[in-house]
């Protein structure tokens, strides 16, 4: 079914006509001009958001400087833990992941080059960032961000730990971003005894970030992974990770927009 603009105009004209006297004088035109003035005044408010969207495609119409992403435990299919998060840096492949700040709350980071070339050969990531963050109280956290547009760069960390002879337990953990929003990630508590008898312990926390709700691989995915030693219990260590994450991610009140 199509609408007929001519008919609509005529109908609208019929509705408008009776309100305008046949011989309307200058005094009766005043309310008319007032209505026109109000509508003209309203026009920018109607079109401005669309104009803004066209000028800045992909950026959510947020009133804050935050960027909104979809976070989830897996990239194959949505899980019930999928959520929207706001971030104070870009975590997508349209931007250089180096934009993520080196100073994150009390944490100060330095870039660390990946020396294991096998990682790059095996994963073929589009972007790969590895940083060591420390805070004055002595704790450290490794941040790895791996970006790609296929499934190849996204080996589940537990598979890699398993292949390298680590023993691990795996679970999920919600990081409260505010009173209403939580960001779920998978945690891994891994340990390994080296040939020299040294016991290594890692606590890993990770999740995936998508630039929009379609979650197409071709739009790019970023794996956000934190690794640290164990500080007390696993839960206490995850609290440490949460402190880091809460300086980058926040509860997102709005849905992200589709890229144009």
């Amino acid at each position, binding site marked *: 079914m199509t609408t007929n603009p001519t008919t609509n105009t005529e109908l609208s004209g019929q509705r*408008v006509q009776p309100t305008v006297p046949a011989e309307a004088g200058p005094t009766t035109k005043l309310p008319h001009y007032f209505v026109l003035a109000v509508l003209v005044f309203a026009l920018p408010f109607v079109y401005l958001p669309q104009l803004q969207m066209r000028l800045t495609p992909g950026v959510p119409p947020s009133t804050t400087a935050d960027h909104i992403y979809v976070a989830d435990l897996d990239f194959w299919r949505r899980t019930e833990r999928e959520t929207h998060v706001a971030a104070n840096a870009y975590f997508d492949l349209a931007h250089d992941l180096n934009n993520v700040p080196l100073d994150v709350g009390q944490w100060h980071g330095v870039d660390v080059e990946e020396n294991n070339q096998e990682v790059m050969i095996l994963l073929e990531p589009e972007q790969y960032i590895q940083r060591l963050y420390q805070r004055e109280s002595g704790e450290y956290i490794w941040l790895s961000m791996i970006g790609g547009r296929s499934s190849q760069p996204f080996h589940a960390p537990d598979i890699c730990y398993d292949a390298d002879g680590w023993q691990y337990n795996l679970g999920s953990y919600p990081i409260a971003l505010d009173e209403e929003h939580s960001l779920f990630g998978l945690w891994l508590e891994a340990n390994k005894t080296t040939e020299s008898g040294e016991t290594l312990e890692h606590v890993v926390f990770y999740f995936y970030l998508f630039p929009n709700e379609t979650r197409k691989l071709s739009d790019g995915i970023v794996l956000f992974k934190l690794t640290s030693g164990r500080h007390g219990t696993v839960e206490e260590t995850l609290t440490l990770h949460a402190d880091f994450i809460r300086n980058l991610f926040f509860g997102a009140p709005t849905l992200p927009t589709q890229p144009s």
Partner: protein
Amino acid sequence: MTQHQLRTRLHRTLTTVTLVWLTAACTVPPTPTAEPTPIVQESHVLGSCALALPAETTDEEAITKVLQAEGEWVVQQEIDLLMQLWNRGATIVDAKHTEADTTDDQQWLDKDAIRHRYVRTVFPGAPAVAAPKDLAITLDGVHATVTATTQIGNEVSPGGDRWQLSKVENCWVIDRLTYNLESQQN
């Protein structure tokens, strides 16, 4: 027609067109936004009640059907259906062929971890067959323990699996799977 009438008619026409245009502007559909994420409800814990079993089905039959469904849905990679079989707080344990020694056990704690194990460890193997056999069911009220031989693809684990289930709201659901219970063959 006088000049005044002509001006008035022209004025009306212009006003009407302007009003229609402005009114239309106010009703321009909003910029298309993403379809809201289909709200993925927390997966229901349905267990045997997801299988539409006849009312006269016994506990043993219901438990058997749950484990058979688990095997079939692994082959079909039906992750959402699989997750309905597991109870909240469920666990999977790899006993690493050392049943007596739990220090080397590897655990997937709760449903997010179990889902992850299916998707990232089990499904990539694309098993063509995943059927429990030789089920030995021990019932203890609303709890049941089942030892089974599982064949996943070419891998056969005789007596290597122990399933623990419980009856929740008249539905049998899986609480725990411990696998690799059999001793390592040299």
